[in-house]
Each structure stands twice: as structure tokens, then as C-alpha cells.
């Protein structure tokens, strides 16, 4: 398992990306993150809900109550136009950052 604070700063983008693909609910997102990373990264649910709150406050996400599971009503999240713009911005920023870090990390073991 990698250090989660490396990823922490990019969680907003990761979660927005997953919600961009389709509307999702909390547990689905944490499962999706684990499976796509082959369990190399598992998000703590507490962190996930904190991100939801933050993104909703910033109006990058909206939520609605949807399908009924065995427990109760699931809360689904959907991305807003602002969220899409933010994600696009994040991707561009990440590319630049990645380039810079690579300059110093590549070519070494």
C-alpha cells in the first residue's frame, strides 16, 4: 500500500472522474477505487465523505436519493458543469506536475 498522503491532494479529481463516468454512490466509489488499483490503494470511507461534503459545498457535485438497496435509499452523486470544468483544470495541472516530477524521478532506480 502506498502512502495515502501522496494521493490525498488528488482525491477530488479521482472522485470527480469516477462520477463523471456515471452517477455513483459512496460505497460504489470506494469499491471502484480499490478494484481499479488492484487494492493497492483503498480509500477510507471517512475521507470519502469528507470529499463529498467539500465538493458539494463547492458546487462541483450534486446529490440525489436513488435506488433502494437492502438497507435504505442510496445517495447518488452527479457531477455539475462546474465540476467538469474543475476536473479538466485538474487534469491539465496534473500533466504539468507529472512532467516536472518526472524530470527528477526518472532514470534512477
Amino acid at each position, binding site marked *: 500500500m502506498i502512502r495515502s498522503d501522496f494521493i490525498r491532494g488528488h482525491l477530488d479529481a479521482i472522485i470527480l472522474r469516477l462520477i463523471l463516468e456515471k452517477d455513483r*454512490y*459512496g*460505497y460504489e466509489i*470506494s*469499491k471502484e477505487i480499490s478494484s481499479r488499483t488492484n487494492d493497492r490503494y*483503498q480509500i*477510507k*470511507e*471517512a*475521507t470519502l*465523505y*469528507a470529499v463529498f*461534503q*467539500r465538493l458539494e*459545498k463547492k458546487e462541483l457535485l450534486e446529490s440525489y436519493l436513488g435506488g433502494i*438497496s*437492502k*438497507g*435504505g*435509499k*442510496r*445517495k447518488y452523486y452527479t457531477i455539475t458543469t462546474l465540476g467538469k470544468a474543475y476536473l479538466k483544470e485538474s487534469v491539465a495541472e496534473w500533466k504539468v506536475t507529472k512532467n516536472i516530477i518526472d524530470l527528477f524521478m526518472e532514470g534512477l532506480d
Partner: protein
Amino acid sequence: MKELKGHVDELFRGIPESEQKTAIMEEVLENLEEKVWDLMEQGKAEEDAINKAIVEFGSIEDLKNELGVKQPVKKNNTKLNLGFSIWGSIIIIALFVFMNFYYSPNVIWFVYPTFAILWWPLSMYFIWKRAN
């Protein structure tokens, strides 16, 4: 599933009641339940599944920040304390001066208690300075 509800209540105990809190608690509980069902389908015993879900939930501290739980801010009272100490010592010194010249005008002794009293505003002054 009662245990799960109890645990969620426990987690959110320090957070002041609000609509937002209730909504998140419901959401968290719902998602945790689904996780537990999932784990049970994978062959875990209910108790194990619940424990795993709870452990993996993580710390609630981040969420607290988002819910606007203010870290208690200590009010800066040092200026007020300094003012109080200055006024207080002036009054006490004035009392000693009065007693000195009224009852024993031939011996000047009020300076001794004056020096002792001045420690009070002096210490308050440095506390105030340190706080700024």
C-alpha cells in the same frame, strides 16, 4: 445491523446536531450496510464483516472539519488582564499612600508594598507581550 448503527452514532457523537449531520449519518450507515452485505456474500461471518467495515471506515477527523466543527478558539484575554492589573494596582497603591500619609506622615513606608504590588502588572505586561 444494530451494532453498525450504534457504531455510527458513536462516531458522530462529538458533532453538533444539524440537518447535514443527520443526512451524512444516514448516508454513511446505508453505505456501511451495503459493504457488510457484500463482505458477507464473500463468505465472511456477520461479526467479521461488521468489524472489517468499521475498521476500514477510518478516522472521522476529516469529516469533522467539513461539518464545521470549530476547534475551540482560546480567547485572547491578556490585554484585558493587563488593564485590570494596572487599574487594580493603582487603586491598592493609592490606598497605601493614603494610609501612610494619614496615619504616619513622619515615616515613608508605602514604597515597600508598592514594589510588591508592581509585580502584578509587570507579569501581566509580559504575558500580554508574549501573546502578541
